């Protein structure tokens, strides 16, 4: 499956953070690349959504829904928002 970008997960992020997040700033925890969420690489593969750095391909965010509960992993990010 080919990647899309962070524009496609605006609704999901709004659900998690209760705010518009596609224009929020991010910094990759691995390489320090700084971009808005909209420009990150996104894989929409059920049951989870994986967000990667456009420069070094590190995993920045993972969203997985299990039994109606969303699990969020933001460990790959140095900065969000």
């Amino acid at each position, binding site marked *: 499956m080919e990647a899309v970008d962070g524009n496609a*997960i605006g609704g999901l992020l709004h659900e998690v953070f209760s705010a518009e997040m596609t224009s929020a700033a991010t910094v990759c925890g691995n390489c320090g690349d700084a971009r808005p969420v909209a420009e990150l690489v996104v894989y929409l593969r059920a049951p989870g959504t994986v967000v990667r750095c456009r420069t070094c391909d590190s995993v920045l965010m993972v969203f997985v829904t299990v039994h109606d509960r969303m699990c969020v992993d933001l460990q790959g990010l140095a900065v969000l928002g």
Partner: protein
Amino acid sequence: MAGTALRRRLTWQVAKVSAVTTETASVRTLTLDVPDWPGHQAGQHLDIRLTDEDGYVAERSYSIASAPGEPVAITVERLEDGEVSPYLTDELRTGDDLELRGPIGGYFIWEPEDGGPLLLLAGGSGVVPLRSILRLRERTGSTVPVRLLYSSRTLDDVIYRAELDQPARGVEVIHTLTRHQPSGWAGYARRADGVLLAEVAWPASEMPLAYACGPTSFVETVSQALVQSGYPPERVKTERFGATGGT
């Protein structure tokens, strides 16, 4: 107040299809009557949710095709292996209900005060949010100069063709047809890349604002070419929707 808008709750609601317009053999526009719509900005999205009899849920994000102030509309291309789009393009009828939430997004948007000149780059159905921008520009009487480069496979795949054939004053529409061209075609017949952009894009010295939307490979090619030609990266907004073979 911007803060209020940003903190607005995003809830699912049921809209009604008020009109269905055929754009091409595989693309339809759905006009929606959304009871609780706070208004949107040009370039924003909405999410559609379909639930089958077994409770299986599929969600997809679609760009809003209409300008702020117009009835909400989305334009959907049927993907042969799609979970959602074949239902929207083949099954849904006027009067049917559709579950959605929106508006969504704050990055790939344009407001008249953002100015220009505007360079709009569309690959296939990537033209949809750019059409919202064009209609907003016209509705608000903006005189920002615009060039739209629109890459399609064939002339029959061009979405909003009649509308784009009658552009507003100050808007230039440049087509390229990558797979097949009708006899006598005077437009471009090649993929959008740095060479083509060197011919059609505003020079970087004019401080243009660029919006590129389409399949991932299209957006990567044109956005990198613009940055190489001197566009500041923050003046090149991008939106990639994966591979559809649509350009």
